[in-house]
């Protein structure tokens, strides 16, 4: 059965803090792909995400948008317990403009580590799909390609879902507190070809930076990897 995107929880504050939490409700076996941000003044910190029950693992590296002055980091919880949890994004020292966003999905693998691509673009313009996470290569299919984009400039009027993606909403509390624009999108992949999450901006200008992520997680059960196809190819060559 195809996966389903089931919601977004978020919270944000301008004041410096060592932690910010959001209440998140999961069903058993949900996947949670989480994003957090903090002011980059002083450099990158060692980030964690916790809720007292579930395990959140950092995916990829911290992305520092040096023009917008924000660090971004992705966490994955592969197999959420059922219930309502206080999900906390934690830093070892206080930083301003700190926020947490939790997306959750049903029907995804509860054991597979996400494949991720990330990118920062300065003044990408308003061309269709001009904002790109850069390509990632799914290890199997079918699965979910989740895109998260954040425009770190108050002068950008909008960021919309890329071609072929479903708009799942925005990190509205980030946008309200920080004067940013964000977008969460997804697409069901049925190919293992390299692919990027893309977005389109509504305006262009100077010092307009956009951070974007593409995160792939296969669906639970029936995931087909590239290996059988290669085995078939080489068995045909041997037979020839």
């Amino acid at each position, binding site marked *: 059965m195809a996966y389903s995107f089931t919601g977004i929880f978020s919270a944000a*504050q301008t004041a410096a803090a060592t932690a910010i939490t959001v209440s998140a409700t999961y069903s058993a076996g949900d996947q949670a792909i989480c994003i957090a941000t903090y002011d980059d003044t002083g450099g990158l910190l060692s980030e964690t995400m916790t809720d007292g029950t579930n395990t959140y693992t950092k995916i990829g590296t911290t992305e520092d948008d040096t023009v917008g002055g924000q660090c971004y980091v992705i966490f994955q919880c592969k197999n959420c317990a059922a219930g309502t949890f206080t999900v906390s994004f934690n830093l070892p020292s206080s930083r301003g403009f700190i926020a947490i966003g939790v997306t959750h999905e049903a029907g995804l693998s509860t054991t597979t580590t996400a494949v991720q691509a990330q990118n920062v673009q300065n003044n990408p313009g308003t061309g269709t799909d001009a904002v790109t996470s850069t390509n990632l290569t799914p290890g199997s299919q079918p699965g979910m390609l989740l895109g998260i984009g954040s425009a770190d400039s108050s002068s950008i009027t909008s960021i919309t879902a890329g071609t072929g993606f479903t708009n799942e909403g925005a990190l*509205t509390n980030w946008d309200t507190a920080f004067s940013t624009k964000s977008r969460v999108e997804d697409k069901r992949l049925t190919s293992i070809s390299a692919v990027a999450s893309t977005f389109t901006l509504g305006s262009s200008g100077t010092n307009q930076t956009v951070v974007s992520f593409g995160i792939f997680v296969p669906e639970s059960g029936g995931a087909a990897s590239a290996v059988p196809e290669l085995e078939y190819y080489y068995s045909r060559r041997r037979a020839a």
Partner: protein
Amino acid sequence: MALTTLLTIPQATVSAGGHTFGPSAVINSAISQFLIVLNQISWSNAGDLAITYSADYSLDGGTTWAASASGNIFDVPIPSKRGNVADQIVIACTIPGIGNANRKVRLVTTFAKTLTVSGSLEAQ
């Protein structure tokens, strides 16, 4: 949607300890977002913990409460980033239960030291 003021927090010097701002009156059933705005009127900028908070909502008129978001606030200046008001604390979180006519919000705090603040609880 324009901001709606749910509760005004008059300028006051707040002593160390627990303080609850609100609850608000029943809020419009269409509101989905809760903002806390606090101005740092008299802070030392010492860099230490100033406030811990819980942004709470009630779906039953104030009988029971749950936290939408929580966190802490350190005693440091807030820059005017992307046009935000300098030294203004803005906390944004979600109020669930759109369509429910019995919702209220409140801000539960513990001040680690005496601070002078003003502010409001807003919604949109």
